[in-house]
């Protein structure tokens, strides 16, 4: 009897330990998010806080500057912000229609055999590492642009837009497809019953019903485009100053600014790269806030 009691106690302890072990691991994700936000902001805001050991920099000059010359102590990123936004905007304008139309084909029109080819192809597209997109851009798109561009080099805003447009396709397609699939068949039947054609039904009934899901896909695509680094770094040109004047001008997105110089930067230069990360992070947070607004009460769930 006493032995049983002991065993029970031992088991109870074991159960409790296990419970806390699992609980602790569940908090790791929360801790990670908090740590990432803390460290990136903490280190990135140092240059703007008076009395910083590595020297100070004016926040307004940082955000409105059109030159990045670390050797001269000039750290302006406005032209990078503009470059990042233009590239993202262009990629969305070109990529979203292609993505949505492809998703419509997969979800509503494709025969089974075609689905069996297209869906794995989209998955493969999502699985290609971004470096290889950059390689493709460097080996194919940049030389192609060089032929039509008035500028001497093919690395340009246009090259970035094309590479990013391809890269957001799988995101837009998969999310739009699942949004379309979650529209109840009764909607389609109702529309057909009223004599509408298939296309009319898709564009006037199904797509509006899947609106918030599609929007979520677009916003995720924006997030992917603005955060993309390695592919873009190979095709952007990364100039040290100047707003892009045309689609053939080289640009220097925020992400590549960080990745290119981090390996040899030190002191204030390094801290200004961290500060660039803060600006990028703010954009990402905004995008995620918009995303959670959209997905709340969406048909996706």
């Amino acid at each position, binding site marked *: 009897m006493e032995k049983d009691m002991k065993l029970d106690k031992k088991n109870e302890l*074991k159960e409790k330990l*296990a419970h806390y*072990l*699992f609980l602790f*691991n*569940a*908090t*790791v*994700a*929360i801790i*990670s*998010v908090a*740590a*990432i936000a803390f*460290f*990136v902001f903490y*280190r990135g805001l140092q240059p703007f806080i008076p009395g910083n050991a590595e020297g100070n920099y004016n926040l307004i000059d940082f955000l409105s500057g059109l030159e990045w010359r670390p050797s001269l102590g000039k750290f302006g990123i406005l032209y990078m912000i503009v470059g990042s936004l233009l590239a993202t905007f262009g990629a969305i304008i070109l990529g979203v*229609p*292609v993505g949505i*139309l*492809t998703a419509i*084909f*997969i979800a509503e029109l*494709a025969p089974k055999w075609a689905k069996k*080819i297209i869906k794995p*192809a*989209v998955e*493969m*597209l999502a*699985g*290609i*590492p*971004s*470096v*290889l*997109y950059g390689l*493709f851009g*460097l*080996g*194919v798109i940049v030389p192609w642009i060089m032929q039509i561009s008035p500028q001497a080099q093919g690395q340009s805003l246009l090259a970035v837009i094309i590479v990013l447009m*391809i890269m957001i396709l799988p995101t837009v397609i998969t999310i739009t497809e699942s949004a379309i699939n979650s529209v109840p068949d009764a909607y389609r039947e109702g529309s057909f019953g009223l*004599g509408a*054609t298939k*296309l009319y039904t898709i*564009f006037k009934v199904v797509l509006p019903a899947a609106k918030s899901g599609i929007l979520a896909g677009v916003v995720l695509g924006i*997030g*992917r485009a603005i*955060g*993309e*680094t*390695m592919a873009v*770094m190979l095709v952007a040109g990364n100039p040290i100053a100047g707003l892009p004047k045309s689609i053939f001008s080289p640009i220097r997105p925020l*992400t590549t600014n*960080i*990745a290119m110089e*981090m390996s040899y930067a030190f002191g204030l230069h390094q801290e200004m790269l*961290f500060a660039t990360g803060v600006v990028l992070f703010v954009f990402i947070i905004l995008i*995620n806030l918009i*995303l*959670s607004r959209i997905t709340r009460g969406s048909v996706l769930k």
Partner: protein
Amino acid sequence: MKKKINIKESFIYGLIGIATLFTIGILVFILGFIFSKGLPHVDLYFLTSQFDSTSAYVDVKLSEGSQNPLGLILEETTIKEKGSKEKKVIVIKEIEDTSLVEDAINNKGKPLALSEKDIINRVNGINVEGKSVEEVNQILNNVNKDTVTMRITKQGGGIFPMIVTTLMMIGLSLLFSVPIGVFAAIYLVEYAKPGKFVNLVRFATESLAGIPSIIYGLFGMILFVMTLNLGYSLLAGALTLSIILLPVIIRQTEESLKAVPDSYREASFGLGANKIYTITRVVLPTAVPGIVVAIILSIGRIIGESAALLLTAGTAAKIPGSLLESGSTLTVKAYTVAKEEANIELASAIGSVIIITIIVLNALSKFISKKFTKI
């Protein structure tokens, strides 16, 4: 009613078709480009050789051979040195069975086997660069001792160190993230009641999934490389990667735990088993295929990752000797080769290896989930 397809409709059908063809076409184009540029360079030598060329002095015992007493069949080739100067050199074309060059010993007394494609620079102190095969064979035939001292150069150009580094990175990151992810999922599915905490965890994993890898790189650099003083290292890279992997592993494991029917748990409880026994002996074994899929997806993610590793693990082209040494994975190397050396062929060759691996991983995860969801 008869369906009417007017001009406008056929135009829209056309657009849908073009968009779909574009999506498929671009994939074919990208794969075609990388394979056509890269695959011709991929062979056993490429996969098993060092990346950097190295030179050494070696002592080789003579033996019987057809061309020369080393049992080596030599040939002349031109190699491109850095700075694109071309140079005529003698390389080993074939090693005969009788040859003892595989037991060669370097000047530190350690074994250093010669292999095909190695360059012979000097024989017994005589510079043989620019000489013909006949001249070198003659020099070798005139040797009257039973050993020859040669300076040889291993050509490099292979990706063996990056393959090993990638494998190490996979093993190490999974070691951290799989237990954390699986335990977290167990908590969410088996213990937690719906409420604030669960929502917070869900919010956190969603946020993690939305953070771009360059931000992970920044974070990893600030925390692991600088604050914890790990330097650019395998360990800093793996720690950063393990956070990147958390959302994938938690979500996949959660799905597979949820798919275990409640009747299993009830039966186990009914037989008097306690909770932890039920989880470890009944629920987890049933969920194993799902967890395996999570691991395969994670491996794909690790292989594809570059921005975060560039800032945390560095770009050294050697096999890291310890957890605190820098090493570049295949993907990071593909980037540095493309960016710094503008060598699209070599980058594509590495890219071909990466893509083939990813195709195999995708097929594997499909196979596993298909096989086990049929139950």
